[in-house]
């Protein structure tokens, strides 16, 4: 696993020096992250990198995971969809299941941190254990248009925290507690984002029987309705009428997402008659994801809702031209027609893909601008810095803080 100093060639020595300065200011504080799954999904991925790096910077960082069970995760998946504004039938029993499992976690999870950092709604009720320590709630979900009933239920917990953290300005709303904007990040040295030798990329394409004889359009995402894989196939079919190309839909499912299997089956059914559509289930195989992104001519991310859309940052970091929905944190990453193309519909996505496949020079320029933007704003070093500043801010009420 990469060390902090390994990032110097990418972000510069002084950027790493700043991180070390901040780490020194947090000596003596224990930071405890708590989420619902150790693997799968963006949160676990970020914590798997973030926790060792914070430790290396001298910040005493721990990571604990709550226990759930199938029923609990079915309910939290419904909550997740409802927070994204999707119509969900949520029963009284669902709230009871959430409360019962939360109560078990309240009894079993030790919240020893000086700062307890709770990720997403699943462990949110642990706030009942708040003592003299500081508590943060990190919302990774797009809550720009949430279901009122679920949001209202969660608000009873949220207001007890010291501060909340959101990934995009559109997710903020008037709250009686402080709220901070911290977009997530990608790790340029991880297996998913590091540069790969051409033979590795070719080997992955061979493994999945994908020939590089026509342009590749790819969406890398969990098989989740909010990622609209069926809409991606529709858009591809519209493009395919005019341009001889192929589509890759690749991704896994997270442990806390029971709906994923059903979505995967629906996608397979829709794609089965077309030999130019490759459906690939990739549970936690980062090198293969990386290779497929590098091999692609256009990356698409046609999400209906998106907490942030880390796959967009991954693709841009590889200087790939991207077509993505104008939702959630995606417009923070793509400035339309400068570092990618934003769309609002299947037809819009199809039109944008045709533009990029038809104008490789334009596509290349968008990709290069995108890489520069990700380098400046969405790498893990910026994320580490923001988290350390966030921790420090809990101890200073001012707008200008002197750490001299």
């Amino acid at each position: 696993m990469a060390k902090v100093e390994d990032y110097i060639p990418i972000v510069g020595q002084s950027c790493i020096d700043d991180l070390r300065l901040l780490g020194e200011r947090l000596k003596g504080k224990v930071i405890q992250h708590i989420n619902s799954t150790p693997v799968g999904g963006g949160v676990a991925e970020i914590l798997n990198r973030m926790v060792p790096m914070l430790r290396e910077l001298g910040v005493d960082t721990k990571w604990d995971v709550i226990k759930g069970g199938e029923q609990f995760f079915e309910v939290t998946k419904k909550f997740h969809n409802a927070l994204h504004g999707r119509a969900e039938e949520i029963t009284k029993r669902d709230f009871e299941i959430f409360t019962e499992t939360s109560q078990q976690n309240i009894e079993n999870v030790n919240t020893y941190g000086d700062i307890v950092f709770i990720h997403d709604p699943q462990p949110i009720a642990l706030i009942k254990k708040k003592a003299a320590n500081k508590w943060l709630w990190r919302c990774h979900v797009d809550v720009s248009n949430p279901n009122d009933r679920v949001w209202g239920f969660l608000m009873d917990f949220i207001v007890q925290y010291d501060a909340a953290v959101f990934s995009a300005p559109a997710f903020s709303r008037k709250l009686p507690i402080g709220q901070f904007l911290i977009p997530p990040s990608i790790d340029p040295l991880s297996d998913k984002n590091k540069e790969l030798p051409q033979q590795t990329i070719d080997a992955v394409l061979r493994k999945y029987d994908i020939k590089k004889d026509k342009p590749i359009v790819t969406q890398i995402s969990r098989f989740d309705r909010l990622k609209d894989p069926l809409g991606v196939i529709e858009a591809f079919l519209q493009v395919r009428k005019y341009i001889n190309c192929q589509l890759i839909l690749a991704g896994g499912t997270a442990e806390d997402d029971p709906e994923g299997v059903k979505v995967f089956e629906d996608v397979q059914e829709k794609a089965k008659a077309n030999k130019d559509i490759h459906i690939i289930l990739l549970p936690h195989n980062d090198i293969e994801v990386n290779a497929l992104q590098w091999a692609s001519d256009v990356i698409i991310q046609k999400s209906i809702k998106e907490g942030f859309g880390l796959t967009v940052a991954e693709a841009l970091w590889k200087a790939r031209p991207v077509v993505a929905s104008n939702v959630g944190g995606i417009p923070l990453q793509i400035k339309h027609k400068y570092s990618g193309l934003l769309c609002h519909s299947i037809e819009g996505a199809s039109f944008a893909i045709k533009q990029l496949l038809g104008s490789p020079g334009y596509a290349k320029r968008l990709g290069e601008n995108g890489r520069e933007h990700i380098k400046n704003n969405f790498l893990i070093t910026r994320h580490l810095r923001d988290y350390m500043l966030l921790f420090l801010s809990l101890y200073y009420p001012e707008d200008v803080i002197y750490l001299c």
Partner: protein
Amino acid sequence: MSELIRAKEPFRFCTRLHLSELTGLRATTLVQLASLIKEVSGSCIYHHTHRFLQQHQYLSPEPPNDFAYWVTDILGEDELGEKLASIDTVQYSTIRKLRDKIASTIEDYLNNNPLAKVKFARSDEEFYFIKSISFILPTGYIAYDLKEFSEILKKVTIDSIYFHIFEARLRLEKPTNDFALWIERSLGDKGLADELCCFDPYTRTLEDLRNTIIQVVERRISV
């Protein structure tokens, strides 16, 4: 090359890191925008007039002003966008004065163009007010003369350059940028100090700004 003057008080390089705090306040129309600009904290105005400098280094020189960007790109009011983008930030010594200028520019425009009052942003394209929390830390780099000063300028982050040029002057309300102040007061070189405060830093990228300062200082050393 003349002998370098050694300062009694060295220049201590600091860096400025920032955290964005969300306010939950948003504007859909120009009327709401003007009203909230007058109401929000100075840290909000500072954020929206300086964010671009650090976040879009590759896009600069661009108007370092979120208000101008939103008015032009979202509401399609190009003329007002141009007026907001061309506000000469260097001329304002306090956030309060800058805020007054931005608000009055929008209000004057609305008085002359009443139809602009009925333009609305889509629900996902509203203007979200964000405030900037600054953290100021010493970097450990100290310069006693111009040679050390220019060598350190090559090493520090653009955040450090940013702090001493932009934040010290406008947010901390110093009469000029920190570099010019030190060179005049501690080295007694008013000519060089004047040279470092007469350009408009808002029209350059931060890397260009760094290179310009280094060139000016090195030219002075070589005289």
